[in-house]
């Protein structure tokens, strides 16, 4: 192919590509979601799940014979205290009217 023809084809391709990209960027769909900042409450629910997971793992490890009763009690009570704190705060935040 003639080099000049190739150059013209490439120039047309580049122009079309740029135009499509700009249309895509600046004409977004109408249902643009604004997104929201994560709340303390959402974080607490995540934390609750993590603490519950930790409790499940601990129970399984205890059942498998890895820890003595005393070690299990100490770890378990620590995790339960943390769960209690998290649940308390969730209750407080949920009791406040929006």
């Amino acid at each position, binding site marked *: 192919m003639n080099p000049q023809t190739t*150059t013209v084809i*490439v*120039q047309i*391709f*580049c122009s079309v*590509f*740029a135009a499509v*990209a700009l249309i*895509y*960027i*600046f004409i*977004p769909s109408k249902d*643009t*979601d*604004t*997104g*929201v*900042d*994560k*709340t*303390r409450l*959402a*974080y607490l629910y*995540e*934390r609750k799940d*993590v603490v*519950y*997971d*930790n*409790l*499940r*793992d*601990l*129970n*399984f*490890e*205890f*059942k*498998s*014979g*890895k*820890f*003595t*009763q*005393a*070690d*299990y*009690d*100490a*770890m*378990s*009570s*620590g995790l*339960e*205290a943390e*769960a*209690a704190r998290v*649940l*308390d705060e969730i*209750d407080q935040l949920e009791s406040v009217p929006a």
Partner: protein
Amino acid sequence: MPLLGSFCLLFALALSGYCFVVGIVGAVRKDFVGYRMAETARRAGMATFAAVTLAAFALVWAAFADDFSLSYILHHSNRSLAAPYKFAVLWSGQEGSLLFWSWLLATYGFVLRWRHKVDQRLVAITSMVLAGIQVFFLLLCNFVANPFGVEPGPMALDGAGLNPLLQYPEMVIHPPMLYLGYVGFSLPFAFALAALIMRYPGEKWIHITRRWTMVTWLFLSVGISLGAHWAYAVLGWGGYWGWDPVENASLLPWITGTAFLHSVMMQEKRGMMKMWNIWLIFTTFMLAILGTMLTRGGAVSSVHAFAQSAIGAWFYWFLGIVFVVCLTFFIINRDHLASENQLESLVSRESSFMFNNLVLLAAMFAVLCGTLFPILSEAVRGYKITVGGPFFNKVVIPIGLFLIFLTAVGPLLAWGSTSWGSIKRNFAIPFFSSVALGVGLIAFGMRPFSDMSHFYAWSTFVLCTLVIATITSEFIRGGLVLRGKMNTNLLFAIFHLMRRNMRRYGGYVVHFGMILFFIGVAGQAFNQEKELEMGIGDKMQVGHYTLTLTADNHDDTPVYESQATILDVQKDGRYYTTLYPERRAYKASGGQPLTVVANHISLQEDLYVIYEGQNEGRPIIKAFINPLVVWVWIGVIVVVFGTGLALVPNAVRVTVAVPAAVPAMDNQQHMQPAGVGK
């Protein structure tokens, strides 16, 4: 193609610049206009991917079309180059590899922006950070190392060709794997910085990036291993790791990335080490950039590095800006990173993670100092002082041994603190197994106190046994619990055990792979080598092998000239194998030599033979016996398999009853998760 490539690179720079600047405005303006601007920034980021992809396509197309009007193609390709290596042209030179970096970053960014609904606000700021990195690399591609630069004058008939050392199948995969690793750390870095900037509550960003980080770590591990295997199979010096600066550069982010993968569990589980983790991932990213700079900028001398160029200064500036940005937001928001729990005891899982991190950091600093010492010595004294393998071995081997010990101990300790009773319960069998192996090795003739390398090897075998025993006990203990609960056999129970916590048990498989790797490395203590000038019919004795030279042939092909021998090998007096070591000189590269290693592999040892050269027409043959090397590669395969397992989502849990009474508390009715105490 130069026109298309140049246009796409410029357009991509404009798009990523828009994504970065408007991303900042969108993050600051928390109103509807701000959100709309953020959405245009997100879309510009996605369009960047299309533009960079087209630019990369244009360069590969030029390689396949033998377009030697491009300087890059002229210097890194030729007409007779095989098709897979024409793809490899994209990352074979400085300019192309920076374009490849940009393309991988754009690809990662595209996936992130595509999946923005996972957390829109967090992803918006992460996208803005990624766009900042993208702008830097596209600036380099456009104005410092443009792969679409055109040669003056008429087009040459043929190119200089790809470096023969790189014309090896693994070399088509090794650089992309390393790059996927280097570039991939941009994602967790960007998430961490975004979480710090917006004071993101909780650890969900870690959860989102967990798989990114593991996949990135996997790519880097595979990339480093392929590089080591290439060095072993192609460079022909008998080893696979020479503490070369560029090898070290790839190891640095791998070490800190490994530390991050471990310590991040502390943050997820216990809300601890937040400041540590954030700096760990910042450091990992900066080390990945440093690694790119060392390879691309030619700051250090290496078999891998490209020529010295002005690009290094750009990287220094970029690293400086990244550090200042990270430090600024850390100082402003450091109160957000306060720990939720404190370290209660030195004998706990938390402390084992902490020691693991400190040991890995010590290894990183040792490797970093050794790697940068030539640069620092030149800056201070005016000449380069190179630090060699003995320094690294002296420092890194003891650190590695302590790390193996921690790998054994960590999983068996309890969170919080561990009593002597629990320690005895968990460590008795592993401890006596490892002691028995240590005594057994001495009884079978190993002399650990004869010299330091034998002591290190013996210690490695003993500690590896300790790890294997602890990992096995973890699987068996858990399996036994589920066997009773599910009324099935032990193997099926262990399968279910893994399915309920893939990350944890996949992690144990990774540890097992690392142990096989260390066993392979320890074999180096027993290496043997011999070099001999041989005539037809001459014999060479090395270890229990006898090598007889039966032929010495010269060959001349259109691509290279070669000199090759045929060696019959006997082991303990019986025929074992025939080996064909060869030495080639590639014509397109001005006679650049390449060693074709003849290697006979077994689980016990490699018989590794090279054609060293000629003296008055007689071939010089060098033979090595490298014990246990194959376990290095098997270990890597197990690591890959284990990481793959850890990436698989968990199956539904099987609940297990715990008879112990739970102390009463105010909200106890809310607190019990499903499956506890039932």
